[in-house]
């Protein structure tokens, strides 16, 4: 889909990018990562010809980009940047409509598309379409930035630290949302970042760059388990095992969990818990409410008296969560197992510390 062949960019005598070759398959997310000044942004900007390469070829769908008209080329490639670059004098709707307008779509089609995209990025069109960029929070602005890049439904998306300028919590939410959108749209994405966790989380393949050269190009799993050299080894850091956990979905590790209804009596609860020490407490609809300790049941007559209420949002995981999140919640809450719930916060099962340890050992091999 995208192919860079021996691409070099020189500024005077110094080469910002030096003999760089890379191939990105259709529908894949390729993350370019490396220390500051390694040439990752330059590489990205050469793909849509905001920077012209000194030598080498860049092929998009087998066609040499050097032969295309830069403006035409760029209209077929989505572009999202860290500073977002929303035009402050235009409404959110007009900002999103930028490329469709350049492509002379008719008005009703543009309006429909804007609505579609705002819904896609989770911002209600009725509320946001008429807003101006400085009425948005940082996270909202970045989501609009992504929506704008997707506006004309380009098959390729170039993103330069698209989640860079927001707080860590918002960033994580944006990443999760982006992963979900990507799952649905299957764009070919090249994303530049200096955040390794982001790379591991989002990438199908990671390209690690240093001093304008490609050092290793592989799946996140391989990069973590078999770094090509000392540079990559040092770059991924000593907590590789922990990082690997963020590539593993909890889904595979969900096991059935003992649960009792809030309305149950102490006797019923004891039978349900069986040989275990505790169980999750749910309401009639199966929604998670808290947990109960078997020992505390001997003094209580009903579950209602002995239940330890939980803030479900802080504890429970969704199916799409990673083992790293599971582990972090276990450590944070001092629990040996973490409940997993569905969209309506109904208990599905649990993930235990033992499973996380086993998964770590398995990945190590």
């Amino acid at each position, binding site marked *: 889909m995208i192919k860079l062949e021996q691409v070099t960019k020189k500024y005077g005598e110094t080469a910002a990018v030096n003999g760089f070759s890379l191939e990105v398959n259709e529908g894949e997310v390729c993350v370019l990562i490396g220390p500051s000044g390694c040439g990752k942004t330059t590489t990205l900007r050469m793909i849509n010809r905001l920077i012209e390469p000194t030598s080498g070829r860049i092929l998009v769908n087998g066609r040499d980009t050097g032969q295309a008209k830069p403006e035409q080329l*760029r209209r077929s490639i989505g572009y999202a*940047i860290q500073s977002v670059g929303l035009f*402050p004098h235009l409404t959110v709707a007009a900002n999103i409509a*930028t490329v469709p307008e350049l492509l002379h779509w008719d008005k009703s089609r543009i309006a429909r598309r804007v609505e579609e995209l705002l819904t896609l990025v989770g911002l209600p069109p009725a509320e946001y379409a008429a807003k*101006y*960029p400085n009425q948005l929070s940082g996270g909202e602005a970045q989501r609009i930035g992504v929506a*704008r890049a997707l506006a004309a439904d380009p098959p390729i998306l170039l993103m330069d630290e698209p989640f860079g300028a927001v707080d860590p919590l918002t960033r994580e939410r944006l990443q999760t949302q982006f992963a979900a959108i990507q799952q649905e749209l299957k764009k070919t994405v090249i994303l530049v970042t200096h955040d390794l966790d982001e790379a591991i989380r989002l990438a199908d393949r990671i390209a690690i760059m240093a001093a304008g050269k490609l050092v290793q190009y592989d799946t996140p799993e391989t990069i973590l388990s078999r770094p090509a050299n000392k540079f990559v080894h040092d770059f991924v850091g000593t907590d590789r095992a922990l990082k690997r956990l963020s590539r593993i979905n909890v889904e595979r590790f969900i096991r059935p969990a003992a649960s009792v209804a809030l309305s149950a009596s102490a006797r019923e609860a004891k039978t349900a818990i069986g040989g275990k020490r505790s169980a999750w407490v749910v309401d009639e609809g199966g929604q998670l409410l808290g947990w109960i300790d078997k020992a505390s049941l001997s003094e209580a007559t009903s579950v209602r008296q002995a239940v330890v209420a939980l803030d479900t949002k802080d504890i429970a995981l969704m199916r799409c969560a990673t083992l790293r999140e599971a582990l972090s919640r276990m450590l944070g809450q001092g629990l040996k197992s973490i409940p997993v719930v569905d969209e309506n916060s109904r208990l599905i099962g649990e993930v235990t510390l033992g499973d996380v340890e086993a998964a770590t050992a398995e990945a190590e091999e």
Partner: protein
Amino acid sequence: MRRQQTWRWIVLAILSAAFIALIANMGIWEASLRYLFPQESQVLHPRASLLTLVVEHLGLVGISSSLTILIGVPLGIWVTRPGGRNFLPIVTDLTSFGQTFPPVAVLALAVPMLGFGLMPTVVALFLYGLLPVVRNTIAGLSAVPPHLLDAAYGMGMGRLRALFRIEIPLAARVILAGIRISVIINIGTAMIGAAIGAGGLGSPIIAGLVQDNLAYIIEGAVPAAVLAVLADQLLANMESSFAYLPEEATR
């Protein structure tokens, strides 16, 4: 916000109408000036009616300011483009020179070449008013954040489209502020045109100075001052109605 703007336009229209009614009515002027200066045998400049003088004056300002805008704004745009960037220092120097050079001196130099009357005055006013327009155009365009242009080009806008859709709307306020300063300066400076027969509100003032008639000076000065205030208001209204204001969007 919108309502406030509508009100400002209404107020301006009422004030302008009052001003026109006042200058069209020579009787009021004659009576009040006679009351103030009973010793003068004549209180109104005999050459032309006040209305004619104001129209002449507006003509001078209109022609020279239009020239200033038509040449100054494109000049400012050109020197901020890649093709014209090399000329940026020369253009700013030349326009600064145009303003430091006294208009009277321009007149003295222009008369032998262009004769008396309208032409040399327009040239002098044009040169004198060029600096604020060019300077503000350059300043406004340079203040457009580079990452916005990166986004614009990155999405496939051509240079011309980015200029008209992004750069000029964002710089409009600063450019209009430059035009406003230039026009106000011109209204005052256009007085000197009378010295070489270009007419305007300078005629009664110069006649008043020569004949030591304070009433003539007042007859020329007061309408000119009011004219400057009205023009200032007009351009201020245009600024807030048509140009993008950073703080407007936060409302």
